[in-house]
């Protein structure tokens, strides 16, 4: 059972494996960040608190200094000093002065008294009798120093009034506790402010803090405090404090924000993974799905259409490019497979036909044996074996000529004295056949055998053996038999050749290079046999006047291109090029396309074989005086003698049996026959060592005729008369 694909498996893995780790990491980061931030903020909070304490102490100092300055100014006033002396009349001007006297910074709440050097009140803005005879005040004045006293209920400034450098009185300013905030210049704020001495708390904006502070209870973590000595007032200290939850509110907020951020990040991570699943994993899934679909497709004709990011697009393009090549390979393999199937069918057909062929061959009066270039039997008939007294099993495909000859000697058909010499001579005679050879072999039993050997392009050859007495009686029947047998053999052979050509010429990839090479070799072998048989058949039909050309309107350029393609597949084109030069454009001619391609293939193959290396054989197609001229042009070599001979004069060699004609001669004779069958003449022009040109001309179908044909074709098109678009 195929496991069902889970589209978001990656997401699930991420969620199950990555996300917890990420959460742990983020929590760790959050904890570390929180700790760092908390430490930093706490340190900063303490620093700020210390700064506030310093500012508070400065403010207290400034305020007290301001008040002291005001009192000093009053104490230094010469009228006040005068009152120390002018006991007689001071009551007339000092009390009114004091009645409405205020000290800056104290407002109406400040009580001001003017005393003598013993602290006895001279004047005041309130009933200051309680201060009279205060021993401590006398002592303070006697010290001649400014005095500042605070207790839990009131505060007191004493500034001496100096006369001639000595403290002879004092300005005493007292104020109730309610005025402490004004005296200290402290404004209400979030933070607690405590003004204290080492012994007593003077002012606290928060009594609870003062109680805790004085009791010595541990302030942390409930409170965060900082202390600072009031400048200019040693012993006086300002403590600024704030409840931790307020002071560190930023930390708490930050911590909350951080927790929120972590939660948000986790959610965002999940969302990100989900989004990734949606926008990335899902495209990947679609991508993978399409790949699987592709994998299940037969022809690799599907393409990946999934889209996504540029990376996906690149991946998609890469996959599709790969699929293109894969499809090409697949098609090539399919073609190859088809070719093999065709070959199998063809082989089967060939076997079938071979059976028929063998039967036909067996029915031949001649002995027939075809040897390959290695002088081994390709095929033979029983007549051949029986003619030489050999068993059919002794002449089978693969049997060497030497063995056959030795068998002849063994059966006593050789009557000479030197069998080895005979054997050597005969083997050498068959070695490197270049043209048809005929000789007569007289057997020791009295029979004379006429042996005709026709070499094939690839080095093989076809030998026919007949007793001379039989030759005359069987000559006519021989051509008919050839026609019959050749016709039967040629059709499947052509099928095989076409298949092999397609396989050889088709894009078989590197992996199938060996197969392609083998196919190419098979094609060329088959093509050679096919051509020969075709030539034999055609020539036989020509001699018997049964040759019919199937002339039809033919696109000459397309036909020539196809011919070039065939020749290139057949011939070795590694050293000699082949190209078409056409100046005609579109040209139509009424010809037998297949026959004409045979003519051109014969001419081009012969031309390529005779061309020097690194030259091009040019097939030039041009108009010449209202006719279409097809010329095969070879540069740098002389015209082959056999070609020249065949094309010069009436060299049809009608008296030579077809099977005795050399393969090349037969091919040229066929070509000449076909060209002449189309009303043309095969000509040759040559210049010594400069090259040669073989050409012929055909009638071109007139334009008017073509127009008529086209008009007839157009009339057959079913189109909407109301619409010109379809026609156009």
């Amino acid at each position, binding site marked *: 059972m195929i496991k069902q694909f889970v589209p978001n498996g990656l997401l699930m893995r991420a969620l199950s494996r990555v996300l917890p780790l990420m959460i742990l990491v983020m929590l760790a980061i959050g904890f570390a960040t929180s700790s760092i931030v908390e430490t930093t903020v706490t340190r900063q909070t303490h620093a700020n608190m210390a700064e506030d304490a310093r500012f508070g102490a400065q403010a207290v100092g400034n305020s007290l200094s301001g008040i002291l300055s005001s009192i000093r100014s009053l104490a230094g006033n010469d009228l006040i000093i*005068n009152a120390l*002396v002018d006991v007689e009349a001071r009551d007339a001007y000092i009390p009114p002065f004091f009645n409405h006297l205020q000290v800056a910074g104290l407002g109406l709440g400040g009580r001001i008294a003017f005393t*003598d050097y013993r602290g006895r009140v001279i004047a005041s803005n309130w009933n200051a009798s309680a201060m009279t005879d205060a021993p401590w005040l006398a002592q303070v004045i006697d010290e001649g120093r400014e005095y500042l006293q605070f207790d839990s209920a009131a505060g007191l400034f004493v500034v001496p009034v100096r*006369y001639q450098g000595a403290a002879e009185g004092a300005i005493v300013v007292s104020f109730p506790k309610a005025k402490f905030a004004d005296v200290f210049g402290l404004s209400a704020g979030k933070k607690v402010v405590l003004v204290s001495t080492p012994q007593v708390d003077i002012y606290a904006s928060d009594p609870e803090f003062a109680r805790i502070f004085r009791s010595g209870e541990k302030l942390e973590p409930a409170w965060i405090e900082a202390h600072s000595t009031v400048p200019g007032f040693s*012993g006086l200290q300002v403590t600024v404090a704030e409840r931790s939850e307020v002071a560190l509110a930023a930390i708490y907020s930050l911590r909350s924000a951080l927790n929120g951020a972590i939660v948000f990040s986790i959610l965002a991570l999940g969302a990100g993974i989900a989004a990734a699943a949606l926008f990335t994993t899902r495209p990947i899934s679609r991508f993978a799905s399409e790949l699987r679909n592709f994998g299940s497709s037969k022809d690799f004709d599907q393409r990946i259409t999934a889209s996504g990011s540029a990376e996906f697009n690149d991946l998609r393009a890469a996959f599709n490019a790969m699929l293109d090549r894969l499809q090409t390979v697949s098609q090539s393999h399919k073609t190859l497979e088809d070719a093999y199937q065709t070959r199998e069918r063809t082989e089967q057909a060939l076997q079938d036909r071979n059976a028929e062929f063998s039967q036909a061959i067996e029915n031949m009066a001649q002995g027939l044996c075809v040897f390959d270039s290695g002088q081994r039997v390709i095929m033979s008939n029983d007549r051949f074996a029986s003619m030489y007294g050999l068993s059919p099993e002794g002449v089978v495909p693969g049997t060497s000529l030497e063995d056959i000859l030795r068998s002849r000697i063994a059966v006593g058909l050789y009557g000479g004295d030197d069998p080895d010499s005979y054997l050597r001579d005969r083997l050498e005679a068959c070695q490197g056949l270049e043209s048809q050879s005929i000789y007569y072999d007289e057997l020791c039993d009295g029979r004379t055998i006429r042996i005709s050997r026709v070499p094939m392009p690839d080095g093989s050859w076809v030998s026919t053996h007949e007793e001379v007495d039989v030759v005359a009686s069987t000559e006519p029947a021989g051509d008919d038999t050839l026609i019959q047998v050749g016709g039967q053999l040629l059709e499947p052979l052509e099928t095989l050749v076409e298949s092999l050509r397609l396989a050889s010429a088709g894009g078989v990839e590197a992996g199938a290079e060996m197969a392609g090479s083998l196919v190419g070799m098979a094609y060329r072998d088959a093509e050679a046999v096919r051509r020969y048989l075709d030539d034999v058949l055609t020539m036989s039909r020509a001699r018997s006047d049964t040759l019919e050309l199937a002339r039809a309107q033919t696109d000459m350029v397309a036909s020539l291109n196809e011919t070039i393609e065939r020749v290139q597949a057949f011939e070795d084109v590694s050293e000699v090029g082949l190209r078409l030069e056409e100046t005609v454009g579109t040209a139509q001619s009424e010809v037998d396309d297949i026959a004409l391609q045979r003519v051109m293939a014969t001419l081009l193959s012969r031309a390529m074989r005779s061309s020097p290396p690194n030259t091009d054989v040019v097939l030039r197609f041009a108009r010449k005086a209202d006719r279409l001229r097809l010329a095969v042009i070879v540069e740098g070599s002389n015209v082959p003698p056999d070609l020249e001979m065949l094309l010069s004069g009436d060299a049809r060699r009608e008296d030579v049996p077809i099977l005795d004609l050399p393969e090349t001669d037969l091919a040229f004779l066929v070509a000449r026959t076909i060209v002449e069958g189309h009303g043309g003449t095969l000509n040759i022009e040559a210049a010594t060592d400069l090259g040669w040109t073989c050409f012929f001309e055909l009638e071109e179908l007139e334009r008017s005729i073509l127009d008529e044909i086209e008009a007839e074709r157009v009339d057959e098109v079913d189109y909407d008369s109301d619409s010109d678009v379809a026609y156009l």
Partner: protein
Amino acid sequence: MEHWVVGSQLARRIGLAAAVVALAIGPGIPGTAADPYQLTSVESQFAKTHTKSHGRKLQALPIRIGLDAAMTGTAGQSGLAIERGARLAIAEINEAGGLLGRELELVVKNHRGIPARGIDNIEAFAGLANLVAVIGGLHTPVALAEIDSIHRHRIIYLGPWAAGTPIVDNGYQPNYVFRISARDEFVGSFLVKKAVGRGLRKPGLLLWRTGWGRSNYRAIMDALPEHGIHHAGVAWFNTSQRHMAKELQSLLDAGADSILLVANAGEGLAVLRAMAALPPQKRVPILSHWGMTGGDVFSRDPRLFDEVDLTFLQTYSFFTPTAPAKSRKLVDRYCVVFKVCGSLGAIVSPVGTAHAYDLVHILARAIRAAGTIDRKQVRAALERIDRHDGLVRTYAPPFTPDRHDALDKSDFRMSRYTVSGAIVPHDLVETQ
């Protein structure tokens, strides 16, 4: 009650407290560490020498005379002068066998010019055994403030300098205040007379805002009509006032052709500076009470006395002594005891010395006459002394029940500083 003292240290405070205590119970005792104005070593040696020199055994407990004056500050010189006069007299008396078989002893208290301290000093003297009298100082305000205490404790108050009329005319009967000094009532008339004598007919009054100023104000205001002139205006200044330009200018703007000044040394110096700061043509003569001579104003800024036409009241001058023999004898003693020799001008604040010297001798006569140191009887004896040939003058009698001021206008003379800072009679300078 928690005390928090700015910048103080407990030990220091304790030390100062001890000083205060010492000051309260025994200030003025020679050799007491707490006495900031104790006798110099020379003075102490002088006292010891002359105590033992006559070879008679004196009773253990001396008869005490208090000195309550400004011994420090800008008027400290006045206290010193009074003390020296008193000590010279006491020395002579003790050399002569003392009084009632007992030695005289001077107990000094410094009131610093502050009435409150003066009162407290009187209170302290009141508790001092064998105290017969207290010699006062320069400051009329202090003396005025002490009047009630003096009479409450029946302390004989001998005024050698403070000229305030109400000091003597204090309303108490019996009056325990006796004075050898100027009396403002007379001074006012004298100054106006002197101004008129110089052709100055529109004086401006520049007065210290105290009882002394007011005392002179009344005197001058009474005297002006007597001499047919009017004042240009009255300006008051406060104690320790350093800048007098405003007040001075107001008087000048009012057309004052002279200034009748009632000031002590500090404030008087400020007036002189204000006057000297004016263009010379705008400066006017200053006819001053004698308060300025209670301090060493000359040495502070001698230039001022060249630039300002200053004359001031004096009642005595060693340059023109009324009793030359006494004067020479005293000057000699002065030189021996205080090592101030060679120039009469070197005797600082001479009126203080002379007045105190005469007061102690008159007091001694009264004690002898009373045969007791009981202050009530001594006070009465003072009113009964027929004659005393003193340094300043011949007192015949010095005091009567109705007159406790021993001097009168005849004793007054205008004086000025010489270029060396000596105080000399003005007419003597003019003569020279």
